[in-house]
């Protein structure tokens, strides 16, 4: 008899304390993340378009309205251009810098810090500086980069930056690339360093040239690092808000879903703002969920 009663108790003893320790986190995340996602989704399906309480459930009406709205499509288009330039820029420069450092540079630590430093600056702070650097005035009143071009005799390089109606968002991505390419570099550098020295030696023994060594032995091993970098950078891109707010404020020309949501929210249209928020969450999920699946599978295989 005593043996039977002791068994469940000892089981509680084994998983009880760990559970209690993680319980606060679980509760907090359940309420403040998933609970609020649920509330947000619920609001997005009501007709709460003003300060007054919602009167009825409208299903997906707000979603259809939003996805057929020119202004929202414009903000998605802006986001797309921004994302493409931002991802391409950070991945390219991050990879390139990491490769150069990996090849062995004197004072590597100095270069590493220089490339990584911009990440320590917040988007809001750097946005204020870039607002000035990307000033679109040309000629006599030029300032920032345009002034620099002018004074170097490269006047033809002057351009309206983000004021350009079609490609303006690419200019907004420049500061973001500047800021995060160093971070991607750090990821890639870790990836390079993670390749066991034996593999390189084995390849050299087999007579592989330096280029072949990289092309066939080292680059293929950077796949997982590249994927992580891609996911991290792309979800940052989807959330971009502070950078745009500090460079241009919330104006039509540089509007992305996040700034549009802010404008709608301050206009007291809660249902519409919640709808935009939900769509942004879904967009992020498109990137994140396959990645989580992939890493889960990898981990299970690794066990």
């Amino acid at each position, binding site marked *: 008899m005593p043996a039977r009663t002791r068994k469940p108790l000892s089981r509680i003893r084994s998983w009880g304390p760990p559970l209690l320790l993680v319980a606060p986190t679980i509760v907090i995340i359940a309420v403040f993340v998933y609970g609020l996602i649920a509330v947000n989704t619920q609001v997005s399906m009501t007709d709460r378009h003003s*300060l007054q309480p919602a009167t009825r459930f409208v299903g997906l009406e707000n979603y259809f309205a939003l996805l057929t709205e020119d202004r929202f499509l414009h903000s998605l288009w802006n986001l797309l251009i921004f994302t493409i330039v931002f991802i391409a820029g950070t991945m390219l420069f991050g990879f390139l810098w990491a490769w150069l450092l990996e090849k062995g540079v004197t004072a590597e630590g100095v270069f590493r810090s220089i490339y990584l430093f911009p990440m320590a600056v917040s988007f809001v702070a750097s946005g204020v500086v870039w607002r000035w650097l*990307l000033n679109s005035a040309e000629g*006599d009143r030029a300032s920032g980069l345009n002034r620099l071009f002018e004074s170097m005799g490269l006047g033809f390089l002057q351009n309206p930056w983000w004021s350009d109606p079609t490609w303006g968002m690419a200019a907004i991505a420049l500061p973001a690339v500047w800021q995060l390419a160093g971070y991607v570099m750090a990821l890639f550098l870790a990836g390079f360093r993670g390749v066991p020295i034996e593999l390189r030696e084995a390849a050299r023994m087999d007579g592989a040239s330096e280029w072949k060594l990289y092309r066939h032995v080292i680059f293929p091993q950077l796949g997982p690092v590249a994927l992580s970098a891609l996911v991290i950078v792309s979800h940052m891109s989807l959330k971009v808000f502070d950078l745009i707010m500090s460079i*241009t404020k919330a*104006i039509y*020309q540089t509007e992305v879903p996040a700034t549009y949501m802010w404008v709608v929210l*301050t*206009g007291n249209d809660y249902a519409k703002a919640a709808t935009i928020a939900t769509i942004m969450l879904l967009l992020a999920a498109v990137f994140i969920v396959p990645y989580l699946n992939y890493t889960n599978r990898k981990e299970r295989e690794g066990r």
Partner: protein
Amino acid sequence: MRKKLIAAAALAAALTLTACSGDGGNGNGGGDGGDNQVEVFTWWASGSEKVGLDALVKVFGEQHPDVEFINAAVAGGAGSNAKAALASRLEAKNPPDSFQAHAGAELSDYIAAGQLQDVSSLYTEFGLTDAFPKSLLDRLTVDGKIYSVPSNIHRANVVWVNPAVLEKAGIDASKAPATMEAWIADLQKLKDAGVETPLALGTEWTQMQLFETVLLSELGADGYSGLWNGDTQWTDPGVKKAAEDYKKLLGYANSDYAGLDWDAATQIVIDGNAGYNVMGDWAEAAFQQAGLKYDSDYTTWPVPGTDGVFDFLADSFTLPVGAPHEKAAKAWLQTVSSAEGQKAFNLAKGSIPARTDVDASEYPAYQQTAIASWSSDTVVSSLAHGAAAPVAWSSDISSAIGKFGSDGNVDSFLTALTDAAKKALG
């Protein structure tokens, strides 16, 4: 083992409690129901606005020494931070005793949600119906009720002129062009005389302000006011004419306008690189700081075609439903509307009082002209500053203007404006 278990449980409980109490505070200090304090919510946290508020509070202390003033100012974002904070307080049924808001249509969301009290009885009690211009009262009245008390008035349809620049093209700065056409002709003359950007312009809301004055010039005071209640159709030929004129004006503006805030745009005129800038009369402070003299170094006139019309915007104070100290809030509104309160505040902030019974000679040169117009002109509501249209509507118009600024397509601009009006007016 048991000790560990208990410790873990205690830790878990403590963490959960702290997490939950984080959002419980309301910053109100507990409403005791007494009327010995008044909590006033504003976004006047810096600069001349802060100086103005301090001056107003000083008068309040003299008029109502038994009431303690509690400053609930929220800084940043030209009021947008404050509005977000205010919305959550109102949502939580924890309103301040009085909050600052732009007078006019920007209040309509609060009114529709039943968050504001009718203060028209205070207008009678304080004698404001006679002190304020009749056309202002018309603009403030919603279904026979008034929901706020304006503390200061600004004018939006003002052209700031640099006579030295105009001289290059032989234009007499002291005489305003009579019509929009004449003004556009002058702009062309300036351009021909080698002034690269005759008109200084800034970011989206300043474009909206320029466009509203062109509308006003084209449609007249009644036609313009009718846009906001459906009496004037947005398909009216006058609106189309205004859009075309506005497009011409954009052609004379600095190319980097989308990236400049109003002060940077005004600075172009001060520096003598542009002849004109349409801006509200808070720009006066910038000219003063630059040490320029009114009527010689710079001058102002109403936007051509809007002479005799005062495109107004105002800050005002409200009485929310469920204000914890209602009596004290009424005392605050009394000070805000009183001759002494308005004088103290407006002299400090550089605006003009809403009352017409003021001694204009106590004010600087520009303000004297504004005070004279205020009591004689027809008053209309500014779009760019929340007086004419509810927030959602003006946000739609603002986005249409931003789009027009980049593509210059008149037809799609007019469609967007018509759609926005349809959505807002139902």
